[in-house]
């Protein structure tokens, strides 16, 4: 159940509500029933990308000429909110990497050829996309990434390593951060990298504690050659492009934290009417009523911070400050909320049979992935001149 305020909020038209409902239906039928199974297998069927593409989930803001829907950020918001019903944060992350992390920058600054070769099939779900920025020695410190691309004739020759790459074991292309110039942020570029080139290899698929159905990979590049025209945007301006791209990624992360914890609280409240102890439903103990009242209040605050960031982003206004705050606030809040939700289920919460146990485990990523909470604070420190 969504908060009553959400669907009635003016930027959400009936079309947005229909979209949210369609995503929800899709998740309930195509993903949720297999959630536990896919977690156990550590991967989900590759066909899901195609199904999601056919549903139109993978290019909501992309121009129709590339197969997208050409809708606004509120539509993306409705999509992220609907996606919580898949009961599997790993699958949701894989889809969001495809739709909102690896591809928007191609849509924004890519050439016609790059859009044709990479964006269009990603929107259709025919190709799987990954975003390759992080490395073993460069996570928070993006400016110091080491994977190098030398320009030789009309090609880039790439050597180095990436780590933590979502969709990495089966990506058809990677939006790849590489070093083309001097040390530091001034020497970074972005490339569209097709994974069928010689010298590319997939190392381990990492064993994680959560988001189990999503593959997170280590990737190696040994003298991989790609055409120089696969440069995305300007050479050595990659750091700025990455920072722009991060905004959408972080906003989506904040929204999914907000929607995910709200759903968990609503479900916990429902559970509280069904489970009794000491002769009354556990939801009637005042300590829990107050706790949920607090959490619903905090989530509501988080929602409006997210919506404010969506509003700015949607109107093309500077939104870094609000997006950073939303990611920080919702990511951190989600930890406390999920802790309590899990506690409320007692022993059942500690099993993977109840979605709450899995959600608690999965939500842990949200203060790390897409930039840690500490990094969010550092950004705010700079912006606020503290």
């Amino acid at each position: 159940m969504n908060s009553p305020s959400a669907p009635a909020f003016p930027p959400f038209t009936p079309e947005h509500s229909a979209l949210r409902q369609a995503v929800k239906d899709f998740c309930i039928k195509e993903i949720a029933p297999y959630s536990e199974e896919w977690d156990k297998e550590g991967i989900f069927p590759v066909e899901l990308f195609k199904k999601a593409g056919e549903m139109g989930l993978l290019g909501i803001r992309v121009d129709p000429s590339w197969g997208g829907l050409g809708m606004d950020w509120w539509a993306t918001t409705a999509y992220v909110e609907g996606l919580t019903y898949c009961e599997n944060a790993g699958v949701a992350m894989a889809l969001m990497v495809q739709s909102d992390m690896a591809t928007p920058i191609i849509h924004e600054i890519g050439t016609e050829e790059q859009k044709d070769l990479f964006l269009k099939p990603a929107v259709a779900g025919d190709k799987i996309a990954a975003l390759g920025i992080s490395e073993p020695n460069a996570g928070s410190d993006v400016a110091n990434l080491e994977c190098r691309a030398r320009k030789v004739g009309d090609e880039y020759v790439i050597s180095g390593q990436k780590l933590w790459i979502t969709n990495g074991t089966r990506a058809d292309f990677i939006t790849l951060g590489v070093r083309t110039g001097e040390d530091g942020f001034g020497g970074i570029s972005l490339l569209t990298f097709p994974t069928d080139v010689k010298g590319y290899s997939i190392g381990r698929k990492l064993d994680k504690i959560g988001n189990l159905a999503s593959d997170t990979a280590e990737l190696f590049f040994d003298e991989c050659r790609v055409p120089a025209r696969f440069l995305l945007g300007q050479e050595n301006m990659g750091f700025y492009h990455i920072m722009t791209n991060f905004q959408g990624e972080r906003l989506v992360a904040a929204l999914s934290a907000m929607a995910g914890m709200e759903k968990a609280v609503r479900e916990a409240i429902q559970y509280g009417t069904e489970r009794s102890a000491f002769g009354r439903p556990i939801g009637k103990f005042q300590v829990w009523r107050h706790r949920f009242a607090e959490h619903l209040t905090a989530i509501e605050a988080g929602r409006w911070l997210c919506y404010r960031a969506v509003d700015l982003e949607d109107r093309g206004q500077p939104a870094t400050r609000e997006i950073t705050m939303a990611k920080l606030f919702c990511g951190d809040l989600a930890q406390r909320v999920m802790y309590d939700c899990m506690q409320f289920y007692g022993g059942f919460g500690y099993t993977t049979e109840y979605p709450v146990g899995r959600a608690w485990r999965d939500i842990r990523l949200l203060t790390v992935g897409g930039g840690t909470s500490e990094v969010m604070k550092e950004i705010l420190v700079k912006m606020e001149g503290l």
Partner: protein
Amino acid sequence: MNIGVLLKQVPDTESRIKINGDANGIEDGDIKWIVNPYDEFAVEQALQVKSAVGGEVVIFSLGSSRTLDAARTALAMGADRAVILDDDGFAGSDSLGVAASLAKAAQEEGIELLFAGKQAIDDDAVQVPQIVGTLLEWPVATAISSYEQDGDSVTVKREVGGGQTEVIKVTLPAVFTADKGLNSPRYASLPGIMKAKSKPVKRYTADDLGVEAGADNAKVTTDGYHMPPPRPAGRILDGELGDQVKELVKLLRQEAKVL
């Protein structure tokens, strides 16, 4: 082929139903409205027939102004256009009034084949499609679980209980009502939702159709609504086993009246 689907908007099964202050209806406020689940099978079947034999799928829905939302869901699934009957002249119709209006609208639109859900999950009256068929003088096959069309001959199956299946051959034009399991309804995809916005919607009033509908013409009237009585708490018998059995039989006979 001109294929029509009768579609009703109903409260979501998860909605908590409350009776309004005048006890002549339910409170609309908090209710989430959905397409009657059985009607989704009807829409899917119509779309499948269309892709096999060509033509057009037209959604017919009678209800209040919000019924268009339900029709739009069907348009987003792939139906071509909608016909909405949301005039005051239809308000308070009984099943006959609803069926007469829908039958007339289907006639006006040159419909040659009609699908509907086997029942609407709000009032479970199970009447409208049957009456529509009767008024159109078309055969009606209810609660079908499979559908095969060959020219204007259609073979359908119905699950008739006890694990038995009835096979019926029908000649078109005809009315079919869909049971669960007839097919698996497709989703309203997001591109479908976008396209649905610009699909044509036609409106008819009761005057346009020249039908006798609405509360004034209703032969069935509703005196009032009330909630089912709350279920009494369970009882646990005690005492000697033999006495318990005797007591149980007595209660089943005298109180529960099931023996």
